[in-house]
């Protein structure tokens, strides 16, 4: 086992490199991903090693990137598109939702769409407007798309390869605030042809409250669990990993053990992924629940200015507040 320690950004780079090596039909496309290596340097060095035809610097036009990626996929290629920042995806929203998501369905499976869209998402980095958003449910609500978000360097490394191997379009949300956090990565970890994208994971077992998170808030939930443990409360943390589909059985199994559930994400709670988790948990373990499912997340406001973003983002205190409320219900 070739295990090494690296930041998440480097792990994605290593995963992309492996995908490029594995299949000559894999292409990277995006703005400034070549010589510059992307604004977050996630694609650093890849154009030098794989050439300009496989690591393609595109014009600054997101619809053009996605639209041409769809055409390349029709021709048998596996494009991996980088969207520079979360809120810059919207010029491509039409191509993603009306074309990419529906092409397989429209053609009864004759034209598959193995396209990956990498999107750095989430806040906490002190950025200007449009650079800190969490638009994942806008895609999760579109059938035909898969929506995933890794929370660790290891998952980032394997899941990006799973995403490339998947026969379906995958929105790959990268928690940019965690890009430089290091983690252990097994570089020989197996890739299961896209099958590794589904499935939530209990990342910290516990007995009192289930805390469900994905992407950047898994770290927050784990921190909260440490603090709670020191106060005698045992939190079980579930990393969803996939927002579409959601691994409901894993969440439900956990809540059946704990009887309580808190869902945490940076996106606004209103009609967010937490609302779906709450509904499914309520449907499937109504009699095991000791308290209503609570949500911790962003507010129904545009993402605020960076000087006050930490009042907007769910943090350890907000998670523990919800834990307390569910315990004292």
């Amino acid at each position, binding site marked *: 086992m070739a295990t090494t320690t690296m930041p998440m950004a480097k792990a994605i780079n290593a995963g992309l490199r492996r995908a490029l090596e594995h299949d000559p039909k894999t292409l990277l496309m995006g703005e400034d991903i070549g010589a510059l290596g992307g604004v977050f340097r996630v694609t650093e060095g890849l154009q030098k090693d794989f050439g300009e*035809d496989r690591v393609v610097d*595109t*014009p600054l*036009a997101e*619809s*053009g990137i*996605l*639209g*041409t*990626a*769809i*055409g*390349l*996929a*029709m*021709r*048998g*290629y596996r494009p991996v598109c980088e969207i520079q920042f979360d809120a810059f995806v919207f*010029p491509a929203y*039409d*191509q993603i939702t*009306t*074309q990419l998501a*529906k092409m*397989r*369905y*429209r*053609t*009864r*499976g*004759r*034209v*598959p769409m193995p396209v990956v869209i990498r999107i750095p998402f989430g806040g906490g980095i002190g950025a200007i407007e449009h650079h800190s958003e969490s638009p994942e449910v806008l895609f999760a609500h579109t*059938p*035909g798309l*898969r929506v995933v978000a890794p929370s660790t360097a290891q998952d980032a490394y394997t899941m990006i390869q799973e995403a490339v191997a*998947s*026969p*379906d379009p995958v929105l790959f949300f990268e928690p940019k605030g965690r890009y430089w956090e290091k983690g252990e990565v097994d570089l020989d970890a197996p890739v299961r*042809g*896209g*099958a590794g994208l*589904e499935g939530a994971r209990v990342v910290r077992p516990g007995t009192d409250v289930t805390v469900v998170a994905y992407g950047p808030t898994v770290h927050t939930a784990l921190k909260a669990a440490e603090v709670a443990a020191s106060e005698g409360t045992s939190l079980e943390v579930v990393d969803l990993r996939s927002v*579409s*589909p*959601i*691994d*409901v059985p894993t969440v439900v199994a956990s809540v059946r053990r704990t009887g309580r559930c808190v869902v945490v994400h940076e996106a606004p709670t209103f009609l967010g992924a937490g609302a779906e988790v709450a509904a499914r948990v309520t449907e499937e373990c109504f009699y095991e629940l000791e308290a209503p499912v609570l949500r911790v997340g962003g507010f129904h406001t545009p993402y605020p200015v960076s000087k006050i973003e930490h009042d907007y983002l769910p943090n350890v205190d907000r998670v523990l507040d919800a834990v307390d409320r569910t315990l004292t219900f």
Partner: protein
Amino acid sequence: MSASLTGEETLVQLVAPDGADATSSPSSDPYRERAAHIVGPDADPEILRGMYRDMVLVRRFDQEGTSLQRQGELGLFPQLLGQEAAQIGSGRALRPADFVFPSYREHGVAWTRGMDLTDLLKIFRGIDHGGWDPAEHNFHVYTLVIGSHTLHATGYAMGVQRDGLVGTGDPDKDMAVVAYFGDGATSQGDVSEALGFAAVNNAPLVLFCQNNQWAISLPVEKQSRAPLYQRGWGFGVPSVQVDGNDVVACWAVMDEALERARSGGGPTFVEAVTYRMGAHTTSDDPTRYRTSAEEASWAERDPIARVHARLVAAGWWTDEDDAALDAEADALGVHVREVTRAFAAPAPESMFDEVYGSPNGQVEAERTWFAQYEAALAAGEGEA
């Protein structure tokens, strides 16, 4: 042509509306040379006769589609009426290996690809969102969102480049990609992005715009201040304006553009100036927004009438040919009606198929629920 948008000096026209040779002009003459085997002194009559036959048959198909909608057999039908020359002329320049991205009115191009036209009606009968296998005739399924597919065509062409199927000089290898769209699409950002991406990548692409003068109720004058063909030049893409009601000119312009694409010369933008003689679709009512005088003036430039006149004048067409073609069109009509009426709705549970290519927990859970619900309903009915 509508005077505000076209100039005599740029429009490529080889056959005039009365069927005679069009006036010689610097813009048209090179194409006349290219089309010498169709309209030159030593032309082979069979080519123009074939084009005429194609146009007559797709017009018959168009009439059948409209009738089937009126009879309630189709939910909607978009007519190509008036655009036969643009589609048959350009379509006949294609080779089997070329790949076409149509919009939703390209019934004539589908015909030139050898498709059974009844496949086109599955969409409009509401039994299939696609209707055919794009790989079978290198003809992608119809795209309903205006202009989106111009980017797909561009990306496909970029793939063709990477596959090494451009500029090899081997006619069995080199291929071109074509996107068909209308004047309305040129207002969409995607079409401009397609021009930009195609240009900088030197993609083997032809962007074939049928300017039929109307985007539903909006005339082209309210869509663009500049003639549409000039769009291409701003992106560094060679652009041609052709009489879209002249089947021979459309063939010649397309033949040149395809040759450029296949040989590695990059993309071309073609504006075929034509007219949507019918409604936008069977749900539309053109009398609300355009005059009968305008329609009458375009009827005089009917793309089929001019070829008939030319064929007859050349002694290449007889009354017997008319009768034989009528019989052929009647047979096509019978085929279209019979096949379409027999198109059955798919099984309800098929709605869960091919949403994803890999097992998906959400869809599978809903498929299972639906099956159980249907079974319970059926059992309940059994008891009642």
